[in-house]
């Protein structure tokens, strides 16, 4: 290539992080993100999830509210949202009641998705439907 020729610019693939304990759930969510053109990073525990946050530029994340213990997904999702303010980050909860909603608000999470509200396709669609804010 000649020096004065511009280097071709390839679009960066979008990256999504899925954090969940259940392998079947991870697989279904991963497939749904992949179908939408995302490169998917998965984690089943907090250390791996935190490592992923340091190694990837995340465009989306779907985090279970219960990773090792009840509620520990909220602070993780809040951290991800603060590091990547433009990312579409959701917490996936088994119940969406007042304590879960308050935990989401107080950790800076913008979206809480009810696990029972639909299949993986719906959950990922719901995560990606939120408006991004910086």
């Amino acid at each position, binding site marked *: 290539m000649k020096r004065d020729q511009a280097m071709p610019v390839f679009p960066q693939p979008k990256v999504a992080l899925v954090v969940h304990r259940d392998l079947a759930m991870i697989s279904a969510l991963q497939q749904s993100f992949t179908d939408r053109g995302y490169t998917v990073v998965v984690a089943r525990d907090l250390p791996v999830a935190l490592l992923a946050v340091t190694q990837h530029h995340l465009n989306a994340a779907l985090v279970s509210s219960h990773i090792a213990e009840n509620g520990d997904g909220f602070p993780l999702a809040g951290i991800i949202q603060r590091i990547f303010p433009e990312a579409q980050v959701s917490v996936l909860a088994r119940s969406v009641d007042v304590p879960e909603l308050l935990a989401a*608000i107080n950790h800076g999470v913008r979206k809480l998705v009810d696990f029972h509200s639909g299949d993986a396709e719906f959950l990922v669609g719901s995560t990606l439907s939120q408006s991004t804010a910086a």
Partner: protein
Amino acid sequence: MERQNIGLELAKAAMQQNPRPVVMLCTGYADVLNSRAALDLHVDYMATKPVELHELLSALASLLARRAAAKSGAR
């Protein structure tokens, strides 16, 4: 004027200000509906009464520190 959701209405109006202030809600009646509305509004903090003053001060300090860090990171 119906005063049931006046806190949420006030929060919404506050959040449209520029610069946007830190918005914290204290409610004596948190149900799924108004908590969901607060989440969708992206308020910074929500507490249910009775709430200790130190809890509010601690949350406010944390939110202001976070904002200052984000501002300095953006420079």
